[in-house]
């Protein structure tokens, strides 16, 4: 089987879908979705074939993957960029997430966007995004990755601002792009630094050269690592560049699910994992990664507690989960990070699509204070979202539990106790705000606008089916990927560890050596057991706390929403409450710094341009003319004055001749 062709097809199909739809979509009207959706499904199928081949190490992939060279993109002398794709197990794992969720979101959108005038445009953009994201995953040259990096940014811009008539959407999209650009600058410089250091832009080759020559590089490797990290931080919305993601919720919900939960925001994590060797050879930067990650995690979680917009809660939860992943990357638990990336991709995608279904049901209402009691009205959405919530809260045996616990466990075992401690605390918050969300949305009595109340209805199958399809992995994925023994073991090949670990082993082995991380044996009745218990405990704790305040209606558990208690609680910690509600004032701070002050500076520069730079130019002109008119005064029109002038000239002339002759 010609894998090269297949690999090339994976991204090109969506691209073709985009081009065709962009060209003729307008005329297709309501049928516009067929081509894009078809393209994505096809590319999913192919991707799966490739993935299986890759993870089973079939030829030509083998241990370390297989590359496809296309054309020499930039043949600038020594600086030559080979456009090409590369699939190894890491890429394969990402392929699973991207194509699967992408496909489901496409299907879901058929229903969700059904009544939107920009129907065709939406699908075109989605396809373009799929292409860019797949390019990002598959690119084998830093510059190709950078291209994809910017393209996904573009798509994000286009999709956030999809409803361009809404100024808020336009502003949000612009904010997203520019904030991302901040990170991209770092990334670009990092790429250049890599080129200066190694003279190549091929990812594997350059990393190899960097690591072996780490001691003697023109540009120290930690700088390279930092610059690359900047890109990752921007794309994955980590502190301090986290401000764009919540606003990005202005986009249609499928977009939030696909781009801002499941795929694009993971690019940062993917990038760091790709460059794990670079980071491994710059331990201090690793520490920074960990700090950034865990800080973002707690920051976002704290904000999520008080948000009332259902999508913003999810957005902040995404931030905080990404924070987990970065923390994992920081401590060197790369496999765990990728693991969480996968599971989170699925259940967060599920949650977002669910919230979309809710919003759809209550007619574009996003404020949870005007929801409640929807459990009966939209049961399928309710159940799927409940699954998602449990998954993210880390209740075994759902997916979230495994991945999150692995991160925390690894952190603890690798000696990053502080990361673990904070992580545990964040876990409480996570469970809390998730069930706050569930409670406010589905349980208790309805607070929905009476006018809308009667019209509430469950979403069509085209939307609910994807929900269920996402719910399944949210439940089982954790087990599947970590289960060592039968029945899964044989399928995935025998060995003590879970499938994912084994897949990623070739990718991360070298890095782990560099870090000196030994693969510790799993001890259920030892340290791991304790950690397990701890995570479960905090998850349950958070859940219960939420139930006490916001009510619960699962089988035996019954409780009702107690606003007064909530008010009492917030009254107890007024500062924390306001801080959380105002997102710790980051937006205001940035607005002051960059918009107000920056605007002033720009205005000053312009003033300088008009009055100083141009002023000098015009000044010279004016001066010349004034001198001219001054000299013109000599021309009095009276002969005698002229004659006197001549006489004086004569005297001076004769005098100067005397002087000259005298010498």
């Amino acid at each position: 089987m010609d894998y090269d062709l297949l690999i090339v097809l994976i991204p090109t199909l969506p691209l073709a879908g985009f081009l065709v739809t962009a060209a003729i979509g307008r005329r297709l009207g309501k049928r516009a979705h067929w081509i894009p959706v078809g393209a994505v499904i096809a590319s999913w199928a192919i991707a799966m074939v490739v993935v299986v081949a890759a993870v089973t190490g079939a030829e030509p992939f083998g241990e370390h993957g297989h590359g496809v060279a296309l054309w020499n993109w930039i043949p600038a002398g020594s600086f030559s960029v080979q456009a090409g794709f590369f699939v190894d197990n890491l890429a394969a794992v990402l392929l699973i997430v991207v194509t699967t969720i992408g496909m489901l979101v496409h299907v879901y959108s058929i229903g969700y966007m059904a009544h939107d005038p920009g129907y065709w445009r939406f699908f075109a953009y989605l396809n373009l995004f799929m292409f860019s994201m797949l390019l990002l995953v598959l690119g084998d040259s830093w510059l190709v990755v950078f291209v994809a990096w910017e393209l996904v940014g573009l798509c994000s811009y286009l999709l956030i601002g999809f409803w361009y008539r809404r100024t808020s959407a336009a502003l949000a999209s612009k904010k997203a792009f520019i904030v991302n650009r901040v990170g991209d600058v770092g990334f670009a410089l990092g790429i250049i630094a890599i080129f200066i250091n190694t003279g190549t832009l091929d990812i594997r080759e350059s990393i190899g050269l960097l690591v072996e020559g780490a001691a003697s590089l023109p540009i120290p490797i930690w700088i390279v690592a930092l610059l690359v990290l900047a890109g990752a931080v921007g794309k994955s919305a980590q502190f301090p560049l986290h401000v764009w993601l919540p606003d990005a919720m202005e986009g249609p919900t499928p977009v939030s699910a696909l781009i801002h939960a499941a795929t694009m925001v993971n690019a940062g994590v993917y990038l760091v994992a790709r460059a794990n060797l670079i980071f491994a050879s710059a331990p201090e930067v690793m520490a920074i990664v960990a700090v950034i990650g865990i800080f973002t995690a707690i920051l976002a979680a704290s904000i999520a507690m008080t948000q009332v917009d259902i999508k913003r809660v999810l957005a902040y939860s995404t931030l905080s989960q990404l924070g987990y992943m970065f923390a994992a990357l920081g401590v060197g638990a790369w496999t765990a990070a990728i693991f969480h990336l996968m599971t989170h991709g699925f259940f967060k995608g599920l949650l977002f699509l669910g919230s979309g279904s809710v919003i759809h049901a209550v007619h574009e209402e996003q404020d949870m204070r005007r929801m409640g009691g929807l459990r009966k009205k939209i049961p399928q959405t309710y159940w799927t979202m409940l699954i998602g919530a449990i998954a993210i809260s880390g209740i075994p045996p759902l997916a979230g539990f495994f991945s999150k616990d692995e991160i925390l466990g690894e952190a603890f075992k690798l000696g990053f106790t502080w990361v673990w401690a904070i992580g545990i605390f964040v876990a409480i918050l996570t469970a809390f705000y998730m069930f706050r969300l569930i409670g406010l949305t589905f349980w208790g009595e309805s607070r929905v606008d009476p006018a809308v109340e009667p019209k509430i209805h469950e979403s069509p199958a085209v939307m609910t089916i994807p929900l269920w399809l996402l719910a399944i992995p949210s439940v089982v994925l954790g087990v599947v990927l970590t289960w060592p023994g039968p029945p899964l073991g044989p399928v995935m090949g025998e060995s003590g560890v879970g499938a994912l670990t084994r897949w990623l082993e070739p990718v991360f082995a070298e890095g782990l050596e560099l870090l000196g991380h030994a693969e510790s044996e799993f001890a259920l009745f030892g340290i791991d057991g304790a950690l397990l218990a701890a995570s479960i405990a905090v998850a349950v704790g958070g859940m219960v706390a939420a139930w006490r305040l916001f009510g619960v209606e699962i089988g035996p558990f019954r409780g009702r929403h107690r606003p007064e208690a909530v008010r009492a609680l917030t009254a107890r910690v007024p500062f924390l409450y306001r801080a959380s509600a105002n997102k710790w004032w980051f937006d205001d701070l940035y607005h002051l710094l960059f918009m107000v002050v920056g605007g002033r500076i720009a205005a000053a520069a312009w003033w300088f341009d008009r009055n100083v730079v141009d002023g000098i130019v015009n000044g010279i002109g004016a001066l010349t003319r004034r001198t001219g008119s001054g000299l013109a005064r000599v021309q009095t029109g009276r002969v005698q004055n002229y004659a006197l002038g001549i006489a004086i000239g004569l005297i001076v002339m004769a005098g100067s001749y005397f002087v000259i002759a005298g010498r």
Partner: protein
Amino acid sequence: MGLADSLDFYLVVAGALFAIGTFGFLARRNAISMLMSIELMLNAVNLSIVAFGAFIPSLQGDGAVIALMVIAVAAAEATVGLAIVIAIYRNAKTPLVDEYDHMRR
């Protein structure tokens, strides 16, 4: 030796006359006075030329000839000048040159 035999004397006198003419030209307002001043200057020059002719060996005779030429030239100038004066007097109705200042700057 006496004054009559010193070239310098004649030249200084010529210079003085020339200066007088210059003064007149600069100071008088009447067109014709200015004309006369110029004549004075030309005569000053003539004086010096003739003096040279008398004292510089190689200019023996030449001086006189040159002087004659200069006289002729002066005559020509005077003719033209007076003609112009008359012409402008017809237009401006005044012989005072410093009132012909319609063109300036």
